[in-house]
Structure formats: structure tokens, C-alpha cells
């Protein structure tokens, strides 16, 4: 949430997109997140995705709530308007903004606390309304800004940094979105840029709400033995615990490029996550199959990633409301006010 801008030094040979912008033009303020945070990798992927799409920055709006994830809206596209609203309420603010101006690209960034606890209702209803927006959940299973409480995506049995075990079942945003009728559902990993960037691009261009759940490890509060949602059972060996007041400087976690159906990613602490990529021949337009696939992966202690479901024919909020094509903010007042003649005619009905 800093306003420190990055130095505008540019390599002269940086490639330009269709608008003549380099990737640096899509960057924002310096991140204030912990070094090695998965969220910064998501931001980097977003920068790349928007640059590759040649999105005019001022035609995009970055929307967020409260939390580590929500802060990242300041860290990219400084020439875009941004709205850091209140905790768990990004979906309603975005719904309103989209109602008023349907022509902007809305990039909503939320986290597992923001969307699965305090904002679960808002997430659900934005999905039902099918507001045209990219909806990212930077999912780390933990409340970072308040120093390490469980979030609603933490798995049963995973432990906090203090050793306390989580006893409540997790909420899986992917299964939830599939159940609620979402028209675009994907999951990825913050360290897998190769998979993430195309998903983000597809999500931005989707005509409806595109939900992308991104497993994004918290290096400070969820990077120890017994932590994380589905990480625990795939852990291969013990690692050193990290002290609460010490933030280790680490390199971000990068997923090895592989074509294998399951990729094993080594986390900061040496634990592993197995990402089940969508199998060949997988039909991402079959909601039932998508649900079954995610559940089957879960039962094998794997995390299903990739573009899991898409319905390109779903009607967005404006199609359902039959709103005019021109953004409402651009309608001249003359088209909104019926005038005194109509009022006097109307008054006859009140006599």
C-alpha cells in the first residue's frame, strides 16, 4: 500500500505491445509484502497478462477488499484506477462500478480471508450475478496481516505457526463456484507463471465472472511444519520452523516446467504440493465432470489446477438486466429525464 514508485529506468530493448507499451508500463508501486510472498508472483503474472493483452491501462479498474492480497492492486498498472474498499466487500463495489460502466475491465483481487470468511456472501452473489470481472483469490490458508490465524481454506488438521490445529473443514472456492453456477472457474499456483498467465488472460477476456483460485504460499505465517491446507499430507520431510518476527529473504517458488500430468512443486520449507493438471481430452465445458475431477483429485491429496470450467454462453449481469449497450455513465441526461410533459400526464393517474 505504499506510494513509492519504482525507478523509471528502462532497458531500451524491451519489447513493446500493440499499444507501444513495454511490460514496465504495466507495473505499479513497490510491493510492501514479505520477500518471497506468492502474491508478488501473482502480481508479476498479472503485469505480463495485461501487457500481452495490450490492455489500455486506464480502461482497467483494480478492485480489492482488505488483506495482503488486496494490497497488491497498488503494485501493478499505476495508470489504472484502483479501489481498495472494505473487508470482504470488493464484489459489491465492483458490481456497482460495472453496473455504471460496463466497458471497463475489472480486475478484482481478494484472498481466502477476504472472500471465504467475511466476504463469502458477497463472493457467492457476485458469482450468481455473473458480473463481468476477473476475480482472483490469492489463497494461502492464513490471515497474514493479523499474524497467522487460520482462514476458512485451511484444511482440517493443518496447524498454525503456534502449533494449534485447525479443526474446521475448509471451504474450497473452486467447488463453491462450480456449485453456484460460475461461468469461468480455474485454479493455479502462484509459482507457475506458465500456467497462470494464460489463465489470467482468458479470465480478463471472459464475458462474465472469471474466478481464479491461486494457491499462493505465505512465507511468513504458513510456511512451517503442519501448516497449509492440502500441503500437510504431501510433506516429505521435516523443516525448520520460522520465527514470527523473522521474515526470511527467499526466492519465490517456481514450479518446474513439466508436461507430466502431475507436477510436484517443492515449497519454501521443502514440503511438496502435487498439482494435477487437467488431463488431455478433459472437457472444460462440462460442469459435472469438472466437479468430479476436482473431488477426485482432492481424494488423492492432489490439487486440481488449470482452467477447470468455462461456459462461454452464460449471460452476464447486463445481459440478464437487459441494460443498454452504452455504459450508463455515458448516457446524456436528456435520455434519463422524462421531462415535465410526461410528469403532468403521469399526475393524472394520481387523482
Amino acid at each position, binding site marked *: 500500500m505504499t506510494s513509492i514508485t519504482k525507478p523509471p529506468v528502462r532497458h531500451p530493448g524491451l519489447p513493446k505491445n500493440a499499444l507501444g507499451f513495454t511490460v514496465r508500463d504495466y507495473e505499479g508501486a513497490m510491493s510492501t509484502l514479505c520477500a518471497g510472498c506468492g502474491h508478488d508472483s501473482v502480481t508479476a503474472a498479472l503485469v505480463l497478462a495485461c501487457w500481452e493483452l495490450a490492455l489500455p491501462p486506464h480502461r482497467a479498474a483494480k478492485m480489492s477488499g482488505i488483506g495482503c492480497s488486496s494490497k497488491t492492486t497498488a503494485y501493478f498498472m499505476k*495508470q489504472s484506477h484502483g*479501489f481498495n474498499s472494505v473487508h470482504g466487500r470488493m464484489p*459489491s*463495489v465492483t*458490481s456497482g462500478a460495472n*453496473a455504471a460502466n460496463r466497458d471497463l475491465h475489472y480486475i478484482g483481487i481478494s484472498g481466502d480471508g477476504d472472500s471465504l470468511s467475511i466476504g463469502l*456472501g458477497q463472493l457467492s452473489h457476485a458469482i450468481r450475478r455473473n458480473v463481468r470481472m476477473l476475480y482472483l483469490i490469492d489463497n494461502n490458508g492464513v490471515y497474514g496481516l493479523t499474524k497467522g490465524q487460520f482462514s476458512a481454506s485451511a484444511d482440517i488438521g493443518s496447524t498454525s505457526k503456534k502449533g494449534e490445529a485447525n479443526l474446521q473443514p475448509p471451504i474450497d472456492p473452486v467447488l463453491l463456484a462450480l456449485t453456484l453456477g460460475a461461468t469461468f472457474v480455474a485454479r493455479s499456483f502462484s509459482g507457475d507463471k506458465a500456467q497462470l498467465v494464460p489463465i489470467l488472460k482468458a479470465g480478463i477476456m471472459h464475458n462474465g465472472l472469471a474466478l481464479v483460485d491461486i494457491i499462493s504460499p505465505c512465507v511468513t505465517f504458513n510456511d512451517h511444519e503442519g501448516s497449509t491446507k492440502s500441503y500437510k499430507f504431501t510433506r516429505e520431510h521435516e523443516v525448520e520452523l520460522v520465527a514470527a518476527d523473522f521474515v526470511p529473504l527467499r526466492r519465490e517458488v517456481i514450479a518446474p516446467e513439466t508436461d507430466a500430468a502431475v507436477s510436484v512443486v517443492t515449497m519454501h520449507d521443502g514440503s511438496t504440493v502435487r498439482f494435477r493438471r487437467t488431463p488431455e481430452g478433459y472437457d472444460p465445458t462440462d460442469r459435472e465432470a469438472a466437479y468430479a475431477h476436482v473431488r477426485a483429485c482432492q481424494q488423492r491429496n492432489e490439487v486440481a489446477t488449470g482452467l477447470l470450467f468455462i461456459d462461454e454462453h452464460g449471460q452476464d449481469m447486463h445481459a440478464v*438486466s437487459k441494460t443498454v449497450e452504452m455504459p450508463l455513465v455515458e448516457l446524456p441526461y436528456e435520455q*434519463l429525464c*422524462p421531462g415535465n410533459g410526461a410528469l403532468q400526464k403521469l399526475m393524472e393517474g394520481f387523482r
Partner: protein
Amino acid sequence: MSGINDFAFKIATVNGTGSASANSLLMQAIFRMGIPVTGKNIFPSNIQGLPTFYEIRVSKDGYTARPPDVDLVVALNPSTYAKDVATVRPGGYLLYDSSWPLEPELVREGITILGIPFGRMCVENFQGDRDRTLLRNIVYAGALAALLEIDMDIVRQMLVEKFSKKKKLFDANNTAIRLGYDYAREHYQCPLPFHLEKMNATSDSIIIDGNTAAGLGAVYAGATVGAWYPITPSTSLMEAFKGFCEKFRTDPETGLARYCIIQAEDELSAAGIAIGAGWAGARAFTNTAGPGLSLMQEFIGLAYYTEIPAVFYDIQRTGPSTGMPTRTQQGDLMSLAYASHGDTKHIVLFPCNPEECFYLSVTAFDLSERFQTPVFVASDLDIGMNDWMCKRLTWDDSYRPDRGKVLGAEELANVKKFSRYLCVDDDGIAPRTLPGVHPNGAYFVRGSGHDKHGAYTEDSDAYQEVVDRLTLKFAAAAKVVPEPEFHLQADAHVGIVSLGGCHAAVLEAIDRLREQGLVADYMRIRAFPFNESVKAFLDSHAAVFVVEQNRDAQLRSLLAIETGMPRDAMVPVLDYGGMPLTAKVVITAVADRMAQVLA
């Protein structure tokens, strides 16, 4: 005392049995006879089976407050007989359904009891339970037409208008009206001593409820985004907006809507939608009541601190908590004025009737965009849901919305560094930009501490600079919000201060007090923050009465806090049982107090 065109009657029925249409038929017929009339619907918070009442006041002098006395009660609900009989004024009348023997509760000395076998006549003349139940209401309307001398040509004309395409229904209703009318004429001396005579006092008036007028006002103000969560008594406001939008805002060629209404999952979301739309540049609003207002608090603070326009209608009902959802009150004054945590102050407008709901809606949107802040319209159940006789609404076609200081693409092209909260004028208002217009206008909205450039800050001075400017902005608003309405008289003994729906009762009380030799000046406050003239009025009256509908004298507290007037120097006149205010409450309070003072 009652007389020609000056009386009140009350109909006691069970809700969900179709009495509402008969009651509005009666009221409208009286209105069309050119006689000033008001209706108050006292209804329960359920759908079917509980007692409901409709009070109609006829007043040749144009008094529209709830009547002080009831001259005639139509008692059709056995479960409330005893209470209903007690509400008849001494010497008044009671009309009951004589299909069954007279209930002992109905017997009372000093009133005249009239029986008409409504139920039996319906059984004899109509088929099926549904028709018999529904038409019983029309039969009593017919009886009242005879007893009160309602013009039957007008009643017939109204039935023609209502059932022009449904001949069967017209015939049934026409028969029912005649049944009641003829029975009353054959068995009783018609009309009663108090009754109707045609006047010409309503030709420039309409009958409308405040929520309908407010919804219409939002259309004329150019609002395009409405967000809401259903809640009594505000629901009909958005329904009205929707209806008028469908009529006036449907593109004639494509059939597409020039508006977007979102029924949200709760009031938090409704507030968020309105604020998001306001940020994006639309005129947006939400409508709610007390419980919804409580839920919206966090968002209200966000809009205040980040300076985003949005209009909030609060149709107040009886609190606290769920309270009495179908009863009226002015209990949200304090929570509106200072809504949300931290230092916050808001512009609040107080319409006194449906007519003002229409005009102040437009003012609310203008003020909201001009001052880049949430603006509240504090209506209430009595204004919002009851049918009031008001002056016909008119519109000035030269009106254009005040969009405030908004930088367009051309201006932004020359801006090197846009600072969102940098203000160079003395009104405390910094120019804003809208998303999507120009890259130079981009900024980051944050509810967290920010400096004048919009950047995050934890620096005391940078933080204070912004919140101090908000104070300046609020002070500037006090100069342009609607002035109070003053009714001043020579040699006034006392000053009365009130607001909103109390207005009609206070006006009536002032007339009665003058007859008693007590001359009162009157100031009806129309907006918060208070204009300078509010303090001047308080200062210039030795005795000040503050009339309002809540337990804790909230308006008095606001006046004390904001004007510095000592709280105890103002005498509270409070009525908070949930019913619309009657003049009697004001007369008694002022007269008693002044008698004490003089003694």
C-alpha cells in the same frame, strides 16, 4: 368537533381480506369531490390474519395530520371490537356487521350503534368464499357512501375506470356498492350529521405516497443505478423507481434499459453497489430502513472518507433492533448524522411529505455529487407508505444535474500529476476523476489513511490535513443545504422546532394554540448540517419546544451539539409509540408547559 367536511372515520378489518382497495376507493372518491382528505394505514407486520386499520380524515381546512378524534368506526374485526369501540369519540358512531348478534363488547353508552348485515348480504348475493370475503369490503364502502354522502356518480366512474376490461368484476362490485348503499338508506337516517359536501379544494392536488414520489424523484434526478435489499417500509421506493424506469427509461428502439437495478444479498452489498457505481460516475442510490442502515455503517464511512457520492434513503421505522417494522418513528436521526466509526458527519435531508420526497430527492443527488459524499434522505413509514394529499408535482425542464468538480479527458491531458484530495478552493472540495476517462486521472481509492495526493500515509500532519478539509467541506455544505421553513407571527410567545413527518401536526397545533391565546413561531428544519438561520431562531426565542418522534430527543441533541444551544434550554415534545403524530400531542405539551411557566 366534527361537521360538514370535517370529520374522521376508521375502518377496522383483518389484513389480507382485500379491504385496502375499498379503503383507497373511499379516499379517492372524497378527493374527487374536491375535499381535502388524508389516509393513514395502520397495518401489522404480517401478510394475512392480523388486525389492520385505515383512518380517513376529511378536513375542509386542509389539515393532513392524523385526526385527533374518530367520529365513526367501522368495526369488522371481532378480535379488536372492544378496543375499536373505545376509540369512538363521545357522541360518535359505530358501524358493525349485524349478520351475527350484537357482541357484548360492542355495547357502549353515549354512542350510536348502527348494524348492517354485510356478511349475510354477501352470502345471499355472491358465490364462493373468495368473492364473499372480498366484496364485503365494497359493501361497507357502499354503506359509508350513503352515511357520509359520497357522490355515487364518482364511485361509479371509479369502478368503470378500474374494471373497464373486466365486466364480470365491474358487475359484482357495482352490485356490492348498491347493496351497502341501499341498505343504509333504507334503515338509517342518511346522511349522518357529519358528512361530505362537494368543494373545489383539490384540483391542484394529487394523492401519492412518499416512496412513490421519492422513486419518481430519483428518475428525474437522473439516477441510473439502484441497489437495495427488501425491507419494510422502504421496499416500495425501489419498486416505484423500477416501475417508472420501465415506463420512461426503456429504449424505444431496442427495448433495452437505461438503468440497472440490483437486488442485493443484503444491505452491506446494496451500499457497496451504490458506492461502486457512484465512484464510476453514475448517480446511484440505495433505500433502506433502520436495520439496513446499521449494516451499512462501514461502507458509509468509506464513502465519506474516500469522498464518493451516493444517495441513501432511510425510510425510518420504529426501532431499536427489529422494533415494530410497520410503525413509524424518527429514531435514526443521530445515527444518520454521524453514521460510521471515527469522525464522520453527513448531509441529511428531512422531507415532510411525499411532495418534498420528490423535490429533495433531486437535491440529494445534486448535493451528493457536488460535495462528493453520501447524502441521506430521512423519510419515515408515515410519509413513505401512506397516501397523502399533496400539490401536483411539476418539473423545470431547464434543470441540469450538478455533477460537481469532475475533471474530463481534455483537462486531464494537461495534468502532470493528479492529486485526488488536493483542494485549492475555499469550499473544501477537491476535483475528482472517473475511471476510464484518461490515464492521467488514475488514482487509488483507499479507506486507509491517505494524504492529499491520495497516497497511503501514517503521518499525523498529512492525515490531519485531509480530515480537516472534510470539516471545511461540511461547513460549506451548511451554507447551501435547504433552508428551514419558517412560520413566524407577530408577538410570538414560544418557538417550536420540528422536522419531517411531524410538520402537518405541528401546523395544526399552532392554529389551535393561537385560538387558546398562545402564539408560536415555527421552524421546520429541512437539512443537516444546520444552516446559520437555525441557530438564529433558537437564540431569538426564550422558550423553544422541539417536537420529534423518538424517545431520546435526538433532534434536540443534534441542535445542542451543533449550535451550542444548551440542551436543557429546549423543551422536548416526544411521541414515539409508532403512530403518526397528532396535533393533540403538541398542543397539550406546549399548553401545559406554558401554563406552568406562567403560574
